[in-house]
């Protein structure tokens, strides 16, 4: 008699993922799949796939998916949620998508407190297009469009999205997590589950920012990339829950 302790969630398809070896996207996809299974919402989830590495996310989730224009995920999610209030709508976005071209959409979705869930993957670089500087690129970090490292005098400072959105009354749940070690993956799962529970309970705007490793565009091995997340990203982007008004 054998029992399965852990296996691929039922909400995910069997399609092998296209992400680079060691990338954090796959871990986040799995956590979301587990959440859909555990909350029993798999049949009413509608996802918004972004422009970026996760553009093929519709291949991996067994749910209906809309592929949005760059940065417009929260606006599309707003439309889907308002026309189908029973659906559980998530927008899956990267940092180049959400924090630069999509800045207006994310801020105003939070201002309106749209009852949607945002999964924000922060890897401090534009991944799919080949390693350009993102708004979240760290000071001194080398990118193809910042070959000498990001200089605040020239390119400004990185944006901390969770801290910024926490100022807005409409945002209800904001957490920053990482997927660099099993302990942080468990915490990330709790935050993602909470963000979807909030939507089921009509709490309002929920966002989980995930610090994710990008070994390819950081030009690092997988262990070096994990070390970069811990030693360079976490001081700039401290982990934690910045707002949790659903708990009151």
């Amino acid at each position: 008699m054998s029992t399965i302790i852990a296996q691929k969630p039922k909400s995910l398809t069997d399609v092998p993922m296209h992400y680079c070896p060691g990338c954090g996207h796959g871990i986040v996809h799995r956590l979301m799949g587990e959440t859909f299974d555990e909350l029993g919402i798999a049949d009413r989830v509608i996802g918004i796939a972004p422009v970026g590495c996760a553009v093929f996310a519709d291949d991996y989730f067994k749910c209906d998916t809309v592929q949005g224009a760059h940065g417009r995920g929260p606006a599309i999610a707003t439309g889907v949620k308002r026309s189908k209030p029973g659906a559980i709508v998530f927008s899956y976005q990267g940092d180049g998508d959400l924090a630069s071209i999509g800045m207006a959409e994310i801020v105003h979705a939070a201002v309106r407190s749209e009852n949607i869930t945002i999964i924000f993957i922060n890897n401090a670089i534009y991944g799919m297009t080949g390693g350009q500087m993102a708004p979240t690129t760290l000071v001194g970090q080398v990118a193809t469009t910042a070959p000498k490292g990001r200089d605040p005098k020239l390119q400004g400072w990185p944006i901390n999205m969770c801290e910024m959105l926490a100022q807005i009354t409409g945002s209800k749940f904001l957490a920053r997590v990482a997927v660099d070690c099993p302990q942080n993956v468990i915490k990330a799962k709790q935050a993602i589950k909470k963000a979807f529970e909030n939507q089921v309970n009509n709490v309002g705007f929920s966002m989980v920012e995930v610090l994710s490793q990008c070994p390819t565009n950081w030009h690092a091995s997988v262990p070096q990339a994990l070390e970069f997340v811990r030693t360079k990203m976490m001081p700039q982007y401290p982990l934690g829950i910045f707002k949790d008004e659903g708990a009151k």
Partner: protein
Amino acid sequence: MPRIEVDATRCKACYLCVDVCPKKCLGPSKSISKKGYFPAEMQHSENCIGCAMCYRMCPDIAITVIKE
């Protein structure tokens, strides 16, 4: 006895599972997969405690943990 199965068609040989295994049960395979990687494989199954940390860290969801 817990054991794990690695789906060699999904594994991209990032070896996150090899690094996090507290009992150091996993290691790179000597045979090449269809994708062109040397997938992770169980090398010391007698030490496996079924903690599923490899499953938690696997970005390609290639690992299934089974308890016999």
